[in-house]
């Protein structure tokens, strides 16, 4: 039975697309047939992060409007065997996504994939609502920062009220919290909300912590999902996230600042 997972946050720029790309790639690396869908109509970017921007011919909107078959729009990922990308359109028509159209695409994908990962746009407008509507599970991407935490709380409320599961009175969407851009040193210095703080504020189970890292920019520069970035902290952290999602016990890593010497401690640096 296919599972639909929405990657959402409310706030923009917190790492939804980075997470969608890394998480979907991680699931595929573990042998699960996975598709990742861009729901950010008009601001397509998942294709760039996945490194398939030059292979986009047809998109989600073409499929919904009957101009292309789903098979024609799905792009096979070049890094993973079991992974496909469904890009969105660059149209400025905000109503291009219809409930019926998205439902039809989802129903067809459910027949062919184990996991359907939906990369939500920022905000709480129709695109974001469409992305979360079919979700069985949600990964709420949050930065340890006031505006991101507040927006995550809003989106958690919307998940509980506006998803298909909520509307049809089914078991609620399973919520996971993913903290990104986490800086253990700044947390230790009392300058950044800690993972315990955010967990307590949002009352949502923590799926993982992704450390702040320059590797993310190196990955997006090249169009390589972060999970493939060698043995970097970020790649390892995303692999842990996927393992925990699949039900494995993995202790949190990269949440402690490296020890610094006495002189550095005294004078800073």
């Amino acid at each position, binding site marked *: 039975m296919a599972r639909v997972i929405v990657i959402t946050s409310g706030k923009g720029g917190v790492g939804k697309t980075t997470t969608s790309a890394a998480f979907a790639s991680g699931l595929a690396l573990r042998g699960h047939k996975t598709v990742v869908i861009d729901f950010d109509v008009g601001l397509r970017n998942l294709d760039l992060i996945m490194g398939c921007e030059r292979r986009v011919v047809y998109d989600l909107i073409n499929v919904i409007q009957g101009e292309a078959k789903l098979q024609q729009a799905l792009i096979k990922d070049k890094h993973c065997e079991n992974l496909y990308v469904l890009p969105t359109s660059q149209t400025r028509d905000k109503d291009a996504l219809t409930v019926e159209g998205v439902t039809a695409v989802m129903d067809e994908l459910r027949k062919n994939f184990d996991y359907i990962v939906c990369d939500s746009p920022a905000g709480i407008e129709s695109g974001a609502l469409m992305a979360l509507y079919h979700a069985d599970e949600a990964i709420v991407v949050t930065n340890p*920062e*006031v505006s991101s*935490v*507040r927006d995550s*709380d*809003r989106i958690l*409320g919307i998940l*509980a*009220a*506006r998803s298909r599961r909520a509307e049809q009175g089914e078991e609620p969407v399973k919520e996971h919290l993913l903290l990104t851009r986490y800086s253990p040193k700044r*947390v230790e*210095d*009392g*300058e*950044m*909300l*800690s993972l315990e*703080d955010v967990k307590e*504020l949002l*009352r949502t189970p923590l799926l993982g912590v992704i450390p702040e890292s320059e590797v993310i920019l190196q990955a997006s520069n090249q169009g390589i999902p972060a999970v493939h970035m060698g043995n970097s902290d970020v790649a390892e952290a995303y692999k842990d996230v996927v393992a925990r999602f699949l039900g494995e016990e993995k202790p949190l890593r990269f949440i402690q600042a490296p020890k610094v010497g006495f002189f*550095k*401690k*005294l*004078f*800073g*640096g």
Partner: protein
Amino acid sequence: MSILDYILGSRKKTANVAKDRLKLILAHEREAGGPDFLPALQEELLTVIAKYIPVDKNNIKVSMERKGDFEVLELNILFPDQH
């Protein structure tokens, strides 16, 4: 942040300020928001109650809040004076 910074007081610990502000605003917004069906529920309850007891529309309040693992639906009705 270095120990010298700390001694000289050049930087404040701001994470606690962030947490306290968020605690307040989230509690406030959760209360204000509530599930979408609350206004409709309030309207329907009022209709049923009004069938038996004359109550003022403004004297009925329905709210929902989370307490730990539970969600508590609170219903407050102010009955009119009997005399």
